[in-house]
C-alpha cells in the first residue's frame, strides 16, 4: 500500500511564551480565517450567510451571537473584512451557496495571532504601533489594520486589557520577538 503523506500545519509560534510586568504575550490557538470582499449592495446577504451583520463603520467589529461556532467579522476597509472563527469552522462552506459575487479567500494558514493581556498591554502595543490606541478612539471591539514595528498587523481590542494581534505567518517571529523585547522596557 502506498504511503500517504499528510501535511501537518504547525503554529509558527508554538510553545513560545513571553511577557513582563503587567503583560503576557501568548500565541493564539489555530483559527479559521477568511479575507472577505463584498460590494456595498450585497453586504447584508453575505453577512447573513455567516450568521452576523458585517460591520460597515470604520474600525468596528461584530461577533456573532448564537449557539453555533462564534464568528467574528472585523472591518478592514470599505469593502473588506477579516472573518475569524474556531479552527473547525467551515467559513467558505457557509458562503458556498449564496448568489452575490464576492471574494472569500481562506487565510487560516497565512495569518497567525498573538494575544496580549494585562494592564500594560496597551503600553506594549504603543512601543511598535504609531496609531493612537487610547480608549476614546480605540474602545473595546475596535479593530484596525496598521503596522507594528516593520510588520503589518491587524489589532483587535477584545477586552479592556486584551488585544488580539493578527500578523502574517512569516512576520510572526519578528512580531513576537519585538513584543518580548518591548516588554522588557515596560
Amino acid at each position: 500500500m502506498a504511503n500517504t503523506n499528510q501535511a501537518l500545519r504547525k503554529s509558527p509560534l508554538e510553545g513560545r511564551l513571553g511577557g513582563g510586568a503587567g503583560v503576557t504575550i501568548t500565541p493564539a490557538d489555530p483559527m479559521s480565517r477568511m479575507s472577505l470582499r463584498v460590494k456595498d449592495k450585497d453586504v447584508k446577504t453575505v453577512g447573513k450567510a455567516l450568521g452576523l451583520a458585517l460591520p460597515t463603520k470604520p474600525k468596528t467589529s461584530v461577533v456573532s451571537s448564537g449557539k453555533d461556532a462564534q464568528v467574528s467579522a472585523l472591518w478592514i476597509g470599505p469593502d473588506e473584512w477579516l472573518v475569524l472563527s474556531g479552527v473547525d469552522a467551515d467559513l467558505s462552506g457557509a458562503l458556498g451557496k449564496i448568489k452575490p459575487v464576492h471574494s472569500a479567500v481562506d487565510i487560516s494558514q497565512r495569518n497567525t495571532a498573538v494575544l496580549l493581556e494585562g494592564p500594560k498591554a496597551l503600553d506594549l502595543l504603543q512601543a511598535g504601533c504609531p496609531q493612537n490606541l487610547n480608549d476614546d478612539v480605540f474602545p473595546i471591539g475596535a479593530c484596525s489594520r496598521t503596522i507594528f514595528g516593520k510588520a503589518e498587523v491587524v489589532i483587535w481590542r477584545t477586552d479592556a486589557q486584551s488585544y488580539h494581534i493578527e500578523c502574517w505567518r512569516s512576520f510572526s517571529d519578528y512580531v513576537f520577538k519585538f513584543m518580548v523585547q518591548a516588554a522588557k522596557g515596560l
Partner: protein
Amino acid sequence: MLYIRCPYCEEYRPELEFRHAGEAHIERPSNLAEISADDMEKFLFIRENKRGIIFERWRHIHGCGRYFNCVRDTVTDQIIMTYKSGEPKPSDEEIEKAILALKEEQTS
C-alpha cells in the same frame, strides 16, 4: 511624521501607514492607440512637480488599502485636505477655506 486624514477611515493616521502614489487627476486618454509618441510620453512621465500647492494620490496601504487624493503644500509640507478618489478636484476657494481652517486650528 505627517498626520494624514484617510477619507475612508474618517480619521487621522500616522504617515507610516500610507504610501505616496504620484500626481492625482491624470486622465487616461480614451484614444491611447492613436495618440502620438510625444503625447504618450506626456501622459506617462511628464508631471507638474511644481512648488506650492499640489494634488497627489496617496494609498492607505497599511490600513484600509484605499487610494485617495490629497492637497499638499510642497513648501511647508502641510497637508491641506484629503478627499476620496473620484471626487472632483477642489476649487481654489475650497482650498483657501481649508487653509484658513487649519490656521485657526493651530492658533486655538
